[in-house]
């Protein structure tokens, strides 16, 4: 789990809870992130169908910001890749690549991103005791 979540950054979020027993704030943030991530993934899939690289890059940047804030390192890295590919650049954003390559790479990175997301989602749900988003987490 260490490689998935940067503990220091995540702990900063936990520190913000007024009451460590109740975790009201951090849980709200995390659940908010779940909604945001799933919504963003849907938008990314649509944009991928439409081959809208600009939109993909912007969505990647968007989700990169929030996943970084929570310290979700792997998701953040995959989002950064999507941002770079979407901008027509290679993985690290240094050299240009073709549009065709970009779409192919985004397809791969998106799959990785979603897989990594599933792992952290499961672990975070366990941590906060929010088992399934359709059942309990609405009390936010």
């Amino acid at each position: 789990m260490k490689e998935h979540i940067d503990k220091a950054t995540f702990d900063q979020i936990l520190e913000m809870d007024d009451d460590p027993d109740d975790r009201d704030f951090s849980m709200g943030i995390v659940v908010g992130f779940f909604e945001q991530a799933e919504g963003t993934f849907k938008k990314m899939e649509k944009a991928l169908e439409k081959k809208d690289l600009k939109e993909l890059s912007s969505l990647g940047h968007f989700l990169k910001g929030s996943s970084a804030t929570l310290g979700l390192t792997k998701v953040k890295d995959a989002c950064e890749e999507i941002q770079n590919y979407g901008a027509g650049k290679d993985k690290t954003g240094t050299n240009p690549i073709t549009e065709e390559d970009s779409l192919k790479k985004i397809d791969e990175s998106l799959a990785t991103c979603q897989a990594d997301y599933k792992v952290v989602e499961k672990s975070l749900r366990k941590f906060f005791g929010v088992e399934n988003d359709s059942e309990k987490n609405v009390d936010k």
Partner: protein
Amino acid sequence: MSLRDRFLNLSMHDRAQTVNLPLITTPPEDNDMALSELKGDPKPSLRTNDNCASDAEHVTPQHDASLYRIYRYTPVPTIVADANLSIVEVSDSHLALSGQTRDTLLNTSICDIAPSIVPVPDTASLYGAIRAAISTKQIQLIDDIHLSDKKSYFRLQVTPIFQDRALIYIVFEAHKDTRDRSDSQDHHHAYVNETYKILVDTVKDYAIFMLDTRGNITTWNPGAAIMKGYSASEIIGKHFSVFYSPEDRRNNKPGRGLAVCLRDGRMEDEGWRYRQDGSRFWANVMITPVYEFGRHVGFVKVTRDLTERKAAEGRLIAAFEESSRLKTDFLANMSHEIRTPMNGMRLALSMLTDTELDNNQREYASILEDSTSVLLQIINDILDYSKLSSGSFSLTSDIVEVESVVGAVVRNCKSCLKPGVTLSCSMPPNFPQTMRGDPLRYRQVLQNLIGNAVKFTEKGHVKISTSFAIDTEDPRMYNVSTEVVDSGVGVPGSAINTMFTPFTRFADTTRRKYQGTGLGLSICKSLAELMNGSVGYRPNPDGPGSVFWFTAKMGRTDTRVSMRRSSMLPTDSSENLIKKLREVAPRKHILLVEDNLVNHMVMLKLLQSFGFERIDAAWDGAEAVRLVKQTPLSYNVVLMDISMPVLDGLEATSQIRSMNIDVPIIALTGNALKGDAETYLAKGMNDYLGKPVHRNHLLQVLWKWLGT
């Protein structure tokens, strides 16, 4: 026309064609006399010219028919002229040689007939020979006169005939030069010539050929044939400008080349030349004028094909630039990548130290903190270095309070002082309170120099003195100079020349291990140069230790700018700072502009935890501009994300600034490269915070802009 008149005439009309004395050879046995004449010894015998006219009158030439026949039938082509240089007799052999008739030559001045008829190389040589013959009364010889139509060489013998002091005749005899030049008596000369000919004909990589005086090609070696694609028969006789581009020809580059060559004695040039098939090559061309017996006869031209070398040079330069760029990119990317987890560690550490720890744990935590800050310093150094070396580093123009910058650096360095070492600073009382410059970079150089002094001083003192002077060239500028004197280990002589070079370190590793990348001083040097100043070193004159000095040019600010902030980061502990900020926070109005819900919530929570109560939220740049426009004087600070939908942070900042609203705007950026931050500052933002936002950093920046 008398002879004197003729010479006078010559010197009036023929200035350019000065008499070329080296052309004339006086027979060796008479050298003494010629020399004494040159030295100007007044010898009566030499003043013959003055008297010749009067003498000639009373010594009337006796026309002895039998003696005349000598000159008419001599086999040596001969012309006899009288004292006025008028031709009085021509031998049959001369008529046969020159192809002239006696009538055309008789009673004509020798100077008026074509030089090749005499025969002489040119009229100037003839004048020279006549003048020398008359003044020395000696026979003069003009050697190596080439008659191309006869394909042979002649030697003209000029014999002055004096009767007492009076010149009565001058006899011109053209002796055929019997030396066969291709198979000559001068075997050595021939051998050398032949050797050179073989050499030139064997050279395949160089085009070596000759031009005549006008630039027409006269010889062609195999190297030339290979390089330029013309065979000898195709090119000989053509002008050498065929090798030049049409543009060069229009500019008369070939002709100018020859002129330069004649003036300077040689001409070297590099440029594109063209082959017969129209392809071009990069040529190095060397042209040398050729003189034969003092006369310019043509040029030797040597051409080398440097296309390969030029291409190799180009590849080398490109490869170097590429590798240098890759190195810079690599350093920048790596540093960026390392900074992200570093920030996480620092954040966790700063929170760890805020928890209740026992003494052991606190010590470990402080070791961790020290190490991470050193590590971060190294990464920042490398980032700075890669920026500086790629030339993309720029300074910001801001207000610098030198006194408080020095004070802050001194406070900062105090904690690192070795026990018993004193740290003091002095500054003239009239030191200007503010100047215009880059406070961050100024501080960085000071920090480095003072930090070094503190690090390397085990006992004694570190003294900092700062002074200023109005720049002599630009009265709007100050020259600020700072000297850091320490009684530390000093700099070994071997390191003095290299210490400002990147990645060099001279710390004595056997005595103590000092940390560092060896980049500090080289960064200082580059930064000082960016500030139109310099850094330097000299040994401490009062004993062991060093003196490092640093100068920078800063703009004068006569009116103090009313900016409610301290120009430096506070050095208080975070507990202290949060206490102070909590006091002022409830009265402050903040605008938070962030499009990402999660980040927005976290920032909001952080700000609330600092005690802020009035926080407005905007979700994109356009909304932020609208809010600021509605209540222009209300906000004390704006925290602004960079990439946002509708209107990004930079554009929003520009719009806010265009309304003349000077509220501090702090960028929230995911980018750690300092150059980007500088772009933000240039766009009108005042400061920046890297993402994810470090709690203590946010605290410090807010205090910087909100604290009084």
